[in-house]
């Protein structure tokens, strides 16, 4: 097998003391950056990019991709311990990860998150290794209608499969869509809802909103309830790690499903964010007791983390093969490649074999070393929870503020973050779910653009969403999921399925 030989060659390029040291340094820096909310993968890579100009491309990319792995691992830490997702795709990890931490099972949740990250990335790397040429041609099949169908699928799966009351999900999603419309409209080139303010020109930044909605609102709630961050039982040992690993085979369906979703959406340029949400929702849908999700179920950590990291890794493929960054971090890496005179595109795999296979080999090694490194440090991170709330809370607020500011160097964003904190607090009080809101804020613009471009191209004919097998099946699946509670009920009545659980209103 040609790919296997090339991969071995890649390992040979890597296995020198110098690269191994760079790898460790990159991972430690990455974890550090990932723990600070608002920084995370893209920023970590961006900060260190100029440092690598003097290195040869292979060492440089190894170091950068290790920072990336480290940051991915690190991002899960804040999601679980403080309910603050560092990256768009960590949002779904908070749903069950944070409740677990509150129940004193932080170490278990962290172990689960790290392990599933590892599995997700590993599946995606295997995919990249053996299917690279085929996959890049798959990505080319995505035009505006196909993109819209994928976004529609994500939105519909939320409404149809969500645990919350449908009308509340829709209200939350609509508000998110509304806010996503702020700023410049790419399709018409006009400004919308900026009210003459130059701060609103660039639109509402997703990360600023998320830091406020999840992080600040959590602090507000905790203050109100006079609760300490309940982490007193966060003792960790090899035993916890081993017991999580022992249970792993029980969840093989979830892991496999999430890996598949992650890879599929990751290769679809720009689809990485949707993956974690979809992985989570499907795990919930197929569980025997979906009610237990959101209350600290370990499967609720496995599902989104596996999907997120499979997609995060698979997103590197369209970047290398087509030059389209699938994620924020991939975009920075893309910039790096060009500085070293490597032009991502269809010819990269042919003209720069050393580099490409060195990178792929570094994905394997970086992941393994990263997992070991991060697991050994779990006790340190979990012990943060034992610090009194009164001491930790101000630190969290400050690091949230730094994160929000750093994204665009704008003071306005700190106010925005605080505003979203209040919104998140109110939403939690009146029982409106936050996840559909954030999802709509991230994907709203892209979904709208994709829809309008499809309409321009098709002269306003909705049939374009069924114009070929690919787009047709995704769209149909989306609509089935949207009306799933109704369909499920009908099937049960006809007796095709053996009685379904009562569907939530």
């Amino acid at each position, binding site marked *: 097998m040609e790919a296997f030989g090339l991969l071995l060659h890649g390992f040979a390029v890597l296995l020198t003391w110098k690269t191994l040291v760079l790898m460790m340094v990159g991972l430690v820096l990455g974890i550090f950056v990932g723990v600070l909310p*608002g*920084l995370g*993968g*893209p*920023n*970590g*890579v*961006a*900060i260190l*990019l*100029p440092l690598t*100009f003097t290195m040869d491309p292979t060492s440089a990319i190894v170091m950068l991709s290790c920072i990336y792995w480290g940051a991915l691992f690190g991002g899960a830490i804040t999601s679980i311990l403080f309910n603050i997702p560092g990256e768009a795709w960590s949002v779904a990890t908070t749903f069950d990860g944070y409740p677990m931490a509150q129940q004193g099972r932080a170490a278990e949740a962290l172990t689960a998150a790290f392990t599933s990250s590892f599995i997700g990335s590993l599946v995606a790397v295997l995919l990249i290794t053996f299917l690279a040429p085929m996959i890049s041609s798959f990505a*080319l*099949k*995505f*035009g*505006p209608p196909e993109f819209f169908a994928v976004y529609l699928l994500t939105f519909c799966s939320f409404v149809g499969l969500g645990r919350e009351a449908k009308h509340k999900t829709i209200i939350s999603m609509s508000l998110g869509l509304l806010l996503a419309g702020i*700023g*410049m409209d*790419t*399709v*018409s*080139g*006009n*400004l919308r809802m900026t009210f003459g303010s*130059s701060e609103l*020109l*660039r*639109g509402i*930044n*997703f*990360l600023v909103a998320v830091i406020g909605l999840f992080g600040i609102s959590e602090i507000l709630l905790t203050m109100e309830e006079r609760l300490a961050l309940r982490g007193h039982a966060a003792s960790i040992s090899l035993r916890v790690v081993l017991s999580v690993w022992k249970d792993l085979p029980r969840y093989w369906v979830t892991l496999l499903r999430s890996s598949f979703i992650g890879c599929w959406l990751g290769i679809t340029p720009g689809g990485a964010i949707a993956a974690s949400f979809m992985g989570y929702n499907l795990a919930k849908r197929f569980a025997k007791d979906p009610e237990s999700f959101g209350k600290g179920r370990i499967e609720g950590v496995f599902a989104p983390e596996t999907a997120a990291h499979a997609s995060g890794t698979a997103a590197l493929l369209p970047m290398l093969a*087509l*030059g*389209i*960054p699938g*994620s*924020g*971090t991939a*975009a*920075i890496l*893309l*910039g790096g490649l*060009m*500085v070293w005179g490597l*032009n*991502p*595109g*269809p*010819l990269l795999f042919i003209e720069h074999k050393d580099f490409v296979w060195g990178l792929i080999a570094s994905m394997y090694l970086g992941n393994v070393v990263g997992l070991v490194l991060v697991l050994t440090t779990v006790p340190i991170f979990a012990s943060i929870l034992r610090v009194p709330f009164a001491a930790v809370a101000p630190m969290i607020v400050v690091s949230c503020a730094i994160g929000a*500011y*750093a*994204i*665009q*160097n704008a003071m306005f964003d700190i106010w925005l973050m605080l505003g979203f904190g209040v919104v998140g607090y109110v939403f939690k009080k009146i029982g409106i779910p936050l996840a559909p809101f954030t999802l709509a804020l991230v994907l709203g613009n892209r979904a709208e*653009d994709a829809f309008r*471009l499809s309409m*321009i*191209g098709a*002269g306003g004919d909705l049939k374009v969403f069924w114009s070929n097998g690919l787009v047709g099946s995704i769209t149909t699946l989306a609509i089935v999921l949207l009306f799933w509670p109704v369909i499920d009920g009908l099937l049960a009545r006809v007796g095709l399925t053996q009685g379904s659980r009562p569907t939530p209103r």
Partner: protein
Amino acid sequence: MGHGIKAAIALAAALCGTPAFAGWEPTKPVEIVVAAGAGGASDQMARMMQAAIQKNNLMKQPIVVSLKGGASGAEALMYMKSSEGDPNKVLIAYSLIYMLPLSAKIPFNWRELTPVSVIALDQFVLWDNSGGPKTVKEFVAAAKAASAPFKMGGTGSKREDHVLTVFLEQKTGAKFSYLPYKSGGEAATQLVGNHTESNVNNPSENLEVWRAGQVRPLCVFDKERISYTSKVTDTQSWADIPTCKEEGVDVQYLMLRAMFLPGKVTAEQQAFYVELFHKVTQTAEYKDYMEKQALKPIFLTGKDMVQFLEEDDAVNKSLMTEAGFVAK
């Protein structure tokens, strides 16, 4: 996302922590502000300059690239406008400085910034899928004969790509549906995937897919052919692409790539950057980049630059007015 670089600057600034004071040499990391998304032509050029400056030690302070492509680049313009007096930010500008204030009524005027130098002129090429028509004449005939209008991919709305599409329609009589994508890279991939019939990308944006034989250049929107004669693909060089005029479609457009400082900086600060970018244009990195990406090298500064900008502004304004893109 792509906000990474901004955070990088914040962090770098926090680490260095010196106050914003500069005589004739920067004392803080310098930020190249890109008014476009990651991987686009502006971003690539900024990275090339970053590398050229650092590899050749042209400046003591580090230089970072800051992507402010939000609101189709308006974010970068407003950022520069609000950074009055700050000599540590340089904008890499293109025709959006004329067009955005007209189409979206952004309260911005390039005359409020401090001009440093024009460093290159960028070409536009009409491309189609390599499975599509082989010449401009065949392409126009096919577009006219098609039952649904041909789809033309481009970057942004009411901007250079859109303007070119309108003029192409006027000169040929064919109709196009213009699809505004977020970046030239996306427009390139969509053409390769046959989701559009053509695009008018800059050479740099389509270079790799051309080399891979996935797209075909039909003609270049300039008075004369591109001067680079070394082979880019197995059979063709940039100079082998005919001009659109040769092919009977008289549409011409060249786009500036120019550096600006914020308003109200001192003459010494301005002089430092004029000198810096002059040195950049002497580096091997710059020369190599110009040839690879088929840009026209040029260096204008001082009065020459202002005169060029005024004339270029007038040209763009009349094109935008004629295309009907000026907001009322």
